[in-house]
Every structure is written in C-alpha cells, then in structure tokens.
C-alpha cells in the first residue's frame, strides 16, 4: 500500500514536472557534446538571466488574474522600443538614458495595456489567442508610426537613426552609449564570471514587489478573479477593472524589461526585436514548470536557466552531432514552439480530466441519492 502510494506520488511528480525534466535531460545530453567550458557556459547563462528575467517576471501578474500567458507583453516591448528610439535621437546617454526610456515607455504601455485589457475583457476565456492577435495588429500600428510618422510628424534629427529617404527609422538603431550601462555598474567578477549586480538588484526588487503585491487588496482581488470570475463578481470585485489593471501592470513592466534587455544587447532591431519576445519569454516560463493558470518566481528562474542553457548549447551540439549547425538553430526554435504547444495541450487535457471527474462524481452522488430514496 505504502509502495503503491509512493509510486503514485512519483508518477504524479513526473507528470506535473515533465517539461522541466525533459529540458534537464536535453541539457545533460547537449552540454558535454557542445564542448563549451563551464566558465563560458555560466557566463552566458548569467548574462542571459540578467537580460531576460525582468521580462519574464511581468508574465506572472496576468496569470494571477486568470488571464493566462500574456502574449500582449509584446505591446510593452514596442512601447520600450519607441521610447529608446526617441532617447537615442535626443542623445541621452548612460543610466539617465535608460531611466528616461523607462519613464517614456510608461504612457505608451499604459495606453496599449488599457486597449489590450478592454479587448481581452470582450474575449474572456480566449485571452491568449486574442492577445497574440492583438500583438500582430499593434505591430502594424507600430510600423506605421516608425516607418512613416517618425520624421515628418514626430521630429527625428539624427541621420544615424533616420532612414536616408528623410523619414522612417533605420532597421537597426545603435545604443552604443547605453550598451550594458546597467550591467556594468556595480558589476563584480567571480571566477571569470561577470555578475551584473545592479540588474539583479532590479530583478530582486521586482520579485519582492510581486510577493508584496500578492498580499495587497488588489493582489487578492486578482487571485479571486483568477479562481472564479462569477464568485469574485458576487463578492463585489470589479472583475473587468481588475483584469485591465493586471494587463496594464504587465505591459508597463514588460516595457521596463525590454529597456533592460535592449541596453544589454546594445542595439535595437527596429522591426523585429519585439516580434518574438513574447513567444520566447512564455516558452522560458513554461520550461520552468509553470502552466497557464499557475506560475511562480521559482518557475521563472528555473525556466531561464534551462531554456537558455538549451539555447546556448543546441546549435553547437547540433553541429557536432549532425555536422550542420543550422539543425541546432532550428532545433531550439522548434523546441520553443513545441514547449508552448505541449504545455497548452497538457493544460487543456488536465482541465477536461478534472471536469469529467467532477461530472462522474456528481453522477455517482445522484445515483446514491436515488438509490437511498428508492429504499
């Protein structure tokens, strides 16, 4: 009996953590094959942690409000890019440039987040696909602004930002004077590994904010809305408003995260930096063991480490195994999409299973009641 129980527990542990376990196995196989030195690997992972964790943490708030994985975080990324283009043209350098870009991104993010939240309120239960499509739609508006409005309507002065035709922004905007200014300030080297202390401090502050926020009245309201919207509404919570606030918060934080991400990269790919950011952040979160309705800070950290280890080693391991590095390149993109698909299928299967079990339980209870009445 005890053996049976422990076996059941082990199997349920495997089932609940299948994605992280799968990734641990991939990393265990790929790391020795890739031939990277431990110090190089750790350096790369630490850099990518500093670059990405802030962005991924912004996904936790909509999950708390039951809105699933917010593909709409791309809107925050677009807001950050608009802000950085302006800051770059105004020649504001270093940390002040980063702070100014974060502040400038706030109004754009709030506006886009409110729009997204309002639309998502009209599409309850289909938030993920709706936010994904909204991000495509907003990409069109973003391109309209960046390609045609920047120059003639929004003044852009510098030729290294503006296209030679006189309006529109270049494919790539250089952030050389902002490059890694956050990462390098207070950075320490431990055994050849550069640790961007200030960036990690900002991440730590956001983690503390999320922990604190969960305990606030608004945080509790979000959790209640996430568990059951009808019950929350009956309890007097303004469900629609709470959901909009969660999306706005997520979008604003995504804007900050994108500024941190781009200052680390040192340049903006004007028309593509934001396009895949949502997908990769969500994939990393899911790799960490999160699901559509449940995610924690621990999932974010584990996900970033595993997903990025795979990202670093896959091309080299692919090249060593098959002789063609493109296979490794495609492999990591394929895995990103696959992880999202598997997680969504598992979530839907689990939801249906729970529903069917509840139905069976109800049927059994009804049969027992009928039998008792007949007797």
């Amino acid at each position, binding site marked *: 009996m005890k053996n049976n129980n422990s076996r059941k527990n082990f199997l349920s542990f495997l089932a609940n953590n299948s994605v992280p376990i799968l990734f641990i196995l991939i990393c265990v196989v790929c790391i020795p094959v890739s031939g990277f030195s431990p110090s190089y690997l750790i350096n790369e992972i630490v850099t990518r942690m500093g670059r*990405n964790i802030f962005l991924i943490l912004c996904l936790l708030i909509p999950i708390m409000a039951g809105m699933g994985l917010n593909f709409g975080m791309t809107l925050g990324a677009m807001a950050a890019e608009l802000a950085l283009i302006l800051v770059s043209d*105004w*020649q*504001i*350098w*270093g*940390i*002040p*440039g980063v*702070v*100014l870009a974060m*502040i*400038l991104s*706030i109004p754009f993010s709030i506006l886009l987040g409110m729009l997204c939240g309002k639309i998502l309120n009209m599409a309850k239960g289909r938030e993920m696909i709706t936010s994904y499509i909204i991000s495509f739609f907003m990409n069109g508006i973003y*391109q309209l602004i960046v*390609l045609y409005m920047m120059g003639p309507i929004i003044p852009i002065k*510098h*030729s290294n930002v503006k*296209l*030679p*035709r*006189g309006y*529109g922004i*270049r*494919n790539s905007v250089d952030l050389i*004077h902002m490059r890694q200014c956050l990462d390098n300030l207070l950075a320490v080297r431990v055994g050849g590994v550069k640790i961007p202390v200030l960036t990690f401090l900002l991440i730590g502050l956001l983690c503390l904010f999320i922990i604190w926020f969960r305990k606030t009245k608004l945080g509790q309201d979000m959790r209640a809305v996430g568990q059951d919207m009808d019950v929350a509404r009956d309890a007097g919570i303004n469900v629609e408003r709470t959901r909009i606030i969660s999306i706005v918060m997520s979008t604003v934080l995504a804007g900050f995260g994108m500024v941190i991400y781009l200052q680390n*990269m040192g340049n903006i*790919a*004007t*028309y*593509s*930096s934001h*396009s*895949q*950011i949502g997908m*990769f952040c969500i994939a990393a979160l899911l790799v960490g063991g999160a699901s559509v309705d449940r995610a924690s800070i621990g999932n974010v950290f584990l996900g970033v480490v595993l997903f990025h280890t795979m*990202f670093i080693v896959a091309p080299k391991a692919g090249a060593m195994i098959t002789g063609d590095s493109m296979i490794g*390149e*495609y492999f*990591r*993109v394929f895995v*990103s999409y696959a992880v999202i698909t598997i997680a969504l299928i598992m979530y839907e299967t689990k939801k249906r299973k729970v529903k069917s079990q509840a139905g069976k339980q109800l049927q059994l209870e009804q049969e027992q009641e009928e039998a008792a009445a007949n007797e």
Partner: protein
Amino acid sequence: MSNKRSLMIRICAVLALILIAACMMVIGRGHTVYLDNKTLEYGGQTYTAPYKVTVTVKGEQVAKLYAKERGSADNVGQRFEMTLKVMQEKNGDETTATYQVKLPYKMDGVVINLPGYFAGLPEEAWLSEFVSLIPEPSAEDGEVPSADEFEMDLGDEF
C-alpha cells in the same frame, strides 16, 4: 481612500515622473567633444598651436595631440572637465592644468580649439559645432526595410 486623495496621489506621481525625466534629459545629455590643436587666426592675430598636448578626461588619457591634430572624448552632461599637459616646444617643459568647459545643450558634437581656449579668447572664437563633412547616403543607398525583413527570425539574439 477618497477619490480626491487618490487623484492627488496620481497627479503627484505623474509630476514626479516628469521631474525625474527632465533631470535625466539634462544630466544624461551626451556630447562628443573634439579637441583641436590647430593654429587659430582670430581678430587679425595668430595663436600658434603648442608642440604637444596630452588630454586626460576622468583619469583616462584620451588623446596625445601634436600640432594640427584633433582628438575626441565623449562627455555626459553639460560640464566637461579635462586635464591638459601642455608642451609648448619640442623637449620643453610640460605644464599641467585642469579646465572646465560648459557645453551648449543643443550641440551634439562640440569642437574646442585649444590655442584659442588657452589664449582666453571669447567663446565664439574657440567653440564651434562639429559638422560632419562626410555626405549623408542617398535614399538609393538606404536600408529601407523590405517586406522580408518583417518576417520572423530565428531569435538568435535572444
């Protein structure tokens, strides 16, 4: 919390953000300072360039300029401080002094003529805006994004 109090807090938060943004715009304004060690003609007089000027900015040597040479340094903010080690003639004595120059906010690139600056001439004589002589690329050479560039990439940078 009353609506009035809530509104006041929001207005204060917005004002604080605007204030911080304004401060960032002032303290973070970047300039490239070009230092010219070139003989200057001004008001009918000639100000000869010293044999060698060694320029140190924030403890780092950024240029060693002989006559007719130009060096540059990046500066954030409107106050530019430089330490100059000047040798007037070959094998002569070197004198070291620290100077502070106020940079105009509107200029991205600022050219400072050192002989004019040393002579204590008015600002218009030794300070000018840097204008690039390299012609801007024409629209044909430009990198107007094509439809292909909007396609999804493999996310190499991520």
